[in-house]
């Protein structure tokens, strides 16, 4: 079955530094979505990428969808304490109602 792998599992970042989390699928995806879950909260939708090679930015967050539509990345610049949480990528196949979630990257920030 479809699998979405996400690395690293944990990311400890010094405030102000940059980091990247990666997402890889065993199959070609119709789209990739990113969600953020704050400690004690529920996942909140951040963004969706649909086109091959697509790049989208949200302030300090840059999302990229690979050319083969099998991988994605989230890059955060100048990390702040508000970036703390777990970032999940999720992908699905065309006409599939199900999203396959990665295991998430849990981010902690050192002030």
């Amino acid at each position, binding site marked *: 079955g479809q699998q979405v792998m996400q690395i690293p599992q944990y990311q400890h970042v010094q405030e102000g530094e940059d980091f990247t989390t990666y997402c890889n699928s065993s199959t070609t995806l119709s789209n990739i979505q990113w969600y953020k879950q704050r400690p004690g909260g529920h996942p909140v939708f951040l963004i969706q990428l649909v086109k091959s090679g697509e790049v989208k930015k949200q302030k300090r967050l840059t999302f990229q969808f690979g050319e083969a539509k099998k991988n994605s990345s989230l890059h955060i610049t100048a990390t702040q304490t508000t970036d703390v949480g777990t970032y999940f990528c999720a992908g699905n196949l065309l*006409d599939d109602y199900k999203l396959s979630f990665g295991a998430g990257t*849990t981010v902690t920030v050192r002030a």
Partner: protein
Amino acid sequence: SQTIHQWPATLVQPVGSPLSLECTVEGTSNPNLYWYRQAAGRGLQLLFYSVGIGQISSEVPQNLSASRPQDRQFILSSKKLLLSDSGFYLCAWSVGTGGTDTQYFGPGTRLTVL
């Protein structure tokens, strides 16, 4: 605007007791509905999804069941809870025919089975 409600927020139940978690969505019609479970510090495991009233697809065989008695109501049940049923249960909804739907999550229910 659309909102999704889940209750209860937290629940502590003894092993072998029944379970009923409810999820309702407001502000949209004919949503796709989902139940996920998240173990502590882990990712999201899809348990059930439904594309319409009375239509339930099960992803993981276990002692849980789901029902959708109304268009915007999704219920997760168990006749006898196991210790391994502890976790964070999340309901989500989407609108569309699949493939590019964004899912919106409810606040979740934290279940502890003792």
